[in-house]
C-alpha cells in the first residue's frame, strides 16, 4: 500500500471529522530534495523584508564592478560569508513625479508600493509584502509576521494601504509568544492535534457560510459588492483555520527554543546587537515550522535614531549635522551607523542560512528584500537608493550579483521580486515608476 499521509491522518476529533497532514518525512521528498514526491509540490518559498533607516554611504557600499563576483566593499563586509547568496542594487531612483519628497518616507513607500506617496506617513496601496502574502501566505497560521527591533510599536512598514500598518511584535518575548505561545503546536512532535477552539470557531463559520448564501440572494449589486469584500476577510479567516487544522509540512530540522527572558529593548546599538539576533532566530524558526511564509523586520524607523551610548547624537541627527570629511569625502560617524545597519541584516541572513531544509537552507527557499528610505540621508536624496536581495527563492533568483540600476526606478526590484516568487505580474508601480522591466539578469 502506498504511503498516503492524508489517508493516515483522516479521522475524527471530538466527533468532528478533520484532516491532518502527515509530518514531512524524507520519503515524501523527491530525489532532489526540493519537492514532495507524491504531489510534486515544492518546499514553500518564503518572503521577508528588512528595513533600516538613513541609507548607506555610497562611497563605502557600491561595488566597483557590476555583475557576478563583485568586489566586497567596506559597508558590505559583514555579508561577505553570504556573498554568493545576495545581490546588491545600486543607482536606483525613487521618482516622486508631482509629489513632494516626503523626507524619510517617499523612498520607503516607493520601494514597498511602487508608487510615490501622496501623503507623508501613508501608503498609496498595500505594501509588497502583503501582495506577496496574498499569494504565498495562505495555509499558514499567520499571513505575515511583523517585527520591530527597537521597541516602538509604531515602527511597522507593512500595510494594507493608507496610514494603518500591521502591528509589529516589539520584543523577542512578544515574538516568541506570538509564534510559539498559546495555540502553537510543534509540528515535529508526535502528539500534534488540531486546536479544539479552532474547530469550534470553524463550525461557527460554517453556519455563517450558510447564512451568507441566503443573504446574498436578497441583496442589490452594491451591497453584494460590499458583502463580498466582507466575506473575503471571512474567507481569509477560514483559510487560516484550515491551516490550523493541518499539521504543517516541515522539512527543516529545528528545535523550538525556550522562551527568551525579558530584555531591555531600545535603539542603542549594543542593545540591538542582543535583540536583533534573537528576533532573527525566532523569525527563522517560525518560517521553518511554517507558522508564516511572510515576515517584515524593521531595525528602527525611517530617519533612524539608533545610537551609540556616550555619543551625543543619534544616527539621523548625525546625517544632518556631521560635516562631510573633506579628505574622506563622506561622513565617517554616519557611515559607521550604516555599517551597523548592514551587520544587523547579515545577522538575519545568517540565521536563515543556518537552517538546513531539503537540499539547501531556509535562505535558499526564501527571498529577502532589504531596503531603506534614502540614499544620501543628509539631503534626503532619492537617487542611488540602495536595495539588497538575499536568497534564491527556491532557485528562481540568481544571486551573487551587483546590479547597477543606472537610474532605474526602484519599482523594477519589486517587479523582479514578485516574478521570482512566481506571481503572475507583468507590470508594477505607477507614474514614472510604472515598469514592465524586471531585472532579468538576476531572474533564473
Amino acid at each position, binding site marked *: 500500500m502506498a504511503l498516503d499521509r492524508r489517508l493516515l491522518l483522516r479521522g475524527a476529533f471530538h466527533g468532528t471529522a478533520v484532516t491532518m497532514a502527515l509530518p514531512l518525512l524524507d520519503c515524501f521528498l523527491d530525489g532532489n530534495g526540493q519537492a514532495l514526491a507524491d504531489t510534486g509540490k515544492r518546499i514553500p518559498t518564503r518572503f521577508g523584508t528588512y528595513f533600516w533607516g538613513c541609507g548607506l554611504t555610497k562611497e563605502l557600499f557600491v561595488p566597483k564592478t557590476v555583475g557576478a563576483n563583485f568586489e566586497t566593499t567596506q559597508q558590505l563586509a559583514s555579508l561577505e560569508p553570504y556573498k554568493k547568496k545576495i545581490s546588491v542594487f545600486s543607482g536606483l531612483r525613487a521618482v516622486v513625479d508631482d509629489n513632494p519628497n516626503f523626507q524619510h518616507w517617499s523612498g520607503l513607500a516607493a520601494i514597498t508600493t511602487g508608487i510615490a506617496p501622496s501623503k507623508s*506617513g501613508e501608503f498609496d496601496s498595500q505594501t509588497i509584502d502583503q501582495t506577496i502574502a496574498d499569494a504565498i501566505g495562505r495555509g499558514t497560521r499567520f499571513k505575515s509576521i511583523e517585527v520591530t527591533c527597537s521597541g516602538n510599536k509604531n515602527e511597522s512598514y507593512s500595510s494594507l494601504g493608507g496610514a494603518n500598518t500591521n502591528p509589529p511584535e516589539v520584543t523577542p518575548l512578544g515574538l516568541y509568544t506570538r509564534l510559539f505561545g498559546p495555540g502553537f503546536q510543534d509540528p515535529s512532535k508526535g502528539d500534534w492535534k488540531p486546536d479544539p477552539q479552532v474547530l469550534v470557531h470553524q463550525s461557527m463559520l460554517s453556519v455563517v457560510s450558510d447564512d451568507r448564501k441566503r443573504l446574498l440572494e436578497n441583496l442589490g449589486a452594491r451591497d453584494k459588492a460590499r458583502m463580498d469584500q466582507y466575506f473575503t476577510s471571512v474567507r481569509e479567516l477560514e483559510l487560516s483555520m484550515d491551516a490550523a487544522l493541518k499539521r504543517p509540512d516541515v522539512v527543516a530540522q529545528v528545535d523550538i527554543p525556550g522562551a527568551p527572558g525579558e530584555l531591555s529593548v531600545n535603539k542603542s546599538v549594543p542593545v540591538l546587537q542582543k535583540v536583533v539576533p534573537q528576533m532573527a532566530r525566532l523569525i527563522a524558526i517560525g518560517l521553518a515550522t511554517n507558522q508564516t511564509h511572510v515576515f517584515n523586520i524593521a531595525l528602527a524607523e525611517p530617519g533612524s535614531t539608533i545610537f551609540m551610548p556616550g555619543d551625543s547624537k543619534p544616527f539621523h541627527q548625525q546625517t544632518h549635522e556631521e560635516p562631510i570629511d*573633506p*579628505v574622506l569625502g563622506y561622513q565617517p560617524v554616519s557611515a559607521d551607523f550604516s555599517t551597523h545597519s548592514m551587520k544587523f541584516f547579515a545577522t538575519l541572513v545568517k540565521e536563515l542560512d543556518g537552517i538546513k531544509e531539503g537540499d539547501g537552507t531556509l535562505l535558499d527557499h526564501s527571498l529577502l528584500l532589504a531596503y531603506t528610505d534614502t540614499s544620501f540621508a543628509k*539631503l534626503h536624496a532619492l537617487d542611488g537608493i540602495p536595495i539588497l536581495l538575499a536568497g534564491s527563492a527556491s532557485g528562481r533568483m540568481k544571486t551573487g550579483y551587483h546590479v547597477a540600476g543606472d537610474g532605474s526606478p526602484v519599482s523594477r526590484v519589486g517587479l523582479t521580486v514578485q516574478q521570482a516568487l512566481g506571481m503572475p505580474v507583468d507590470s508594477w508601480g505607477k507614474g514614472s515608476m510604472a515598469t514592465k522591466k524586471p531585472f532579468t539578469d538576476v531572474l533564473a
Partner: protein
Amino acid sequence: MNGYRRLGHHLLCTVLTLAPTPLMAAPWVRSFVVDKYEPAFHYGGRPGFEKTGTIEPGVDCPGGTLPMLDYAKVTKTSWRSDEEVASWVKPAQVTDLQTVHYMQERILSYRSFRRDIESYINPFTAPDPGMPSVVGKVAEGFNLDGNVKTGRFISPEGEKGIDNAFYRAVGCIGSYRGVPYTAAMSVRSTDKMLEGMYTMVIRLSGNEDPMNDDAATLEIGYSPDHVNKQTDGRASTSYSFRIVRNEQYSKVKAVIRNGVVETQQVPELHTPRFGWFPNQMGDADFHQGRIRLEIDRDGFASGLVGGYRDWRDLYTEDTFTQSGATVETRDHHDLVGMYYALKRNADGMPDPKTGENMGISIAYRMKAVPAYVVDPEKPVALNVSPGDSRAIKKYQQMRTIFRNGTMTATIQANPKGSSEGAPQLRQRADGSWTNSDGERGAQRDATPPIGPSTMLQQRVSEVSGEAPAASLSAR
C-alpha cells in the same frame, strides 16, 4: 516626464535650428534648462595637496573654515551662567539624544542681550562673533560697478575689479565650500531642483547667428515642467519646457561673440532663486544684474548670473527656510555671524536716505543642457501645493518681521506659529521627552513645555499672548 514633450512635438518650431548658419542670417532660437546652480565661490584648495575634491583649508580661508559651532561658547551671555549653559548644551538629566538636540536648538535661539529676545529674528541684539571671511584674491563674478579698484577680486581669467562680496562674507562657511557643484548646500539644492522642486529655463533668440549676434535676446524664468534626470545625474536634453512669465521672468538684450553670451546690465534682473526648500522659491532680484553664458559646440551652456542683492534677503533665505537653529546645528552656519558679515560687506544699493549699502555683490554659477523652451498656449502658473503655499506665506511673514526689526532697530516678537525659537519640549506618557515635531504629522504646538530653564515658560507666554511670568519680567 512625458515623452510627448520630446523632439517630435516641435514640428511647429521649424524656425528653430541648432546648426550654425554662418552664411545667411536668419531668426534663431536656442534654449536651455538649468541642471546645476550654486553660489559662485572660488576655492584655492590646499597648497601641495592633490587629492581631488579636497577643499580644506583653502588658500582663500587660511584661518580655516567655519566648523560646527561651539554651542557653549556662542550661547554664553552676561545673563546666563555657565551652569545654565551646561544644563542646555549638555544636560546631564536628559538621556534622550533627540531631546538634547531640541534643547540645544532652543538655547541657540536665545543668545541676545536679554533673555526673552529671539536671536535669529533679532540678530542685531546679539554680539558679532566675527565670522572668518575670505582673504583670497580670486573670485568668479562680474565687475558690477565698472570700477577695477573696487571689488578687489580678480577673475580666474584675469579680469580685475570682480565684485563678489557675498563670497568674501560667507565663503568660509564649510557647507558652502567645495569644488564647483560639490559643496553640501550646492548638492542639496541641485538635488531638490532635479527632483522637481523647481525648474529654471533660459531662452536665447536672435536674427543673425546663434554663435555671433549683436542683437540677441535672453529670457530667463521658471517652468512648471519638471526636469527629466539622466542616469549620470544631469538633465536629459531636448525636452521642452513652458516658460512662466511671472515676477521671476526677465527678458534682456544680449550680445554673443564666439558663443559667449553677455547680457546688458539692467537695473532689475529677476530670476528664480537658489534654494533647497519650497518656501525658498521666489524672486532673486538682482540690481544691476547681468548674465554671462558660454555655449559649447554641443549646445550645452555654463556661466554666471550676478548683480547686487539685498543682503537682508540673503540672510532671510538662509535663516528662515527651516528655522535658524536647524540651519546652525545641521548646516553649521553661524547666523548671527552671517548677519554681521553680510551687513559689513554690503557694497551696493545705497539707501537714498542713509547712504548705507543695502545690497551685496553676488554671483551664481550654473550649467544648463539644451532644451526647448516654449510659450504655453494658455498662461500657466507654477504648481504650488497648499502646504508649500502656507510655508511660503510663513516665510514671507518672517522676512517682513526681520526687516522691520533690522530697519528700525526695534526688537521683534516671535510670532505665533513661527518655526523660530525652537519647539518646546514635552513629556510623553512613558516619561520620555519629545518635541511635537517628533510625532508623525503633528504640528508645533503650545502644550505646556517642560525643561530645565524658565526660558521655556517665556515661550508659552509669547504664544498665548499672556504677560510673561513675573520672575522673567524682572530680569
